[in-house]
């Protein structure tokens, strides 16, 4: 088990196949859990034409590093990768890739989910959508944070 972290914030499309190959490549671990989030074509009742993400350079990377460190203190992990896209993107584009290897399946799943739950509530990214209303007009709208994401984080404190 080789502990290597990869954190990247990028404006280019995510290369899921490449990230997976690098993650699994020489990890020596038996288990690999991955999560990929992408732009949905429907959100809160209106059609999404496109989406853009901004972030807080410096703080983002620092918060992601802190999340990975905390995950490593909870589970035996090999490689951990977080890649998050920023800038303008289209429907079905991949926004985030989280990959974790571990000798143990349950640890890989738990760590991957933990990282996503914390990323959602702590990492300094903000989305805004371009939406078209029924008359065909487009407008920009900042996505509101969801209470359900905060609720998901609660379960990690209880344990």
């Amino acid at each position, binding site marked *: 088990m080789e502990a290597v972290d990869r954190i990247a914030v990028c404006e280019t499309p995510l290369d899921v196949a490449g990230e997976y190959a690098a993650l699994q490549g020489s990890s020596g671990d038996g288990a690999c859990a991955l999560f990929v989030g992408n732009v949905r074509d429907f959100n809160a009742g209106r059609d999404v034409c496109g989406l853009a993400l901004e972030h807080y350079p410096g703080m983002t990377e620092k918060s992601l590093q802190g999340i990975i460190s905390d995950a490593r203190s909870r589970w035996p992990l090999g490689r951990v990768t977080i890649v998050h896209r920023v800038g303008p993107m289209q429907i079905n584009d991949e926004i985030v890739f989280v990959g974790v290897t571990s000798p143990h399946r349950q640890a890989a799943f738990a760590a991957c989910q933990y990282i996503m739950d914390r990323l*959602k509530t702590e990492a300094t*990214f*903000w989305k805004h959508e371009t939406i078209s209303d029924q008359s065909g007009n487009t407008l920009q709208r*900042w996505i*509101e944070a969801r209470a359900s994401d905060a609720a998901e984080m609660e379960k990690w404190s209880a344990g």
Partner: protein
Amino acid sequence: MVKVLFFARLRQQLGREETILADFSGSLGDLRETLCEQHPDWRPHLQREDIRMALNHALANTGDRVRAGDEVAFFPPVTGG
């Protein structure tokens, strides 16, 4: 000198992404009050209950001490992932 950054909806509401406080000393709460006094139209936005504050890239509270050279940021709840 303290650099203050604004992000996302808050950045658009204030119409700027950063401001500089040349000579500030006090808590993060004091800093926010100073900004609101300088820009009365910012107060309803900066004092919204859901606005987060960061000090040198870490989440911070109104009681935290701000020193010369620090970087402060105000932003709404995050929505990445």
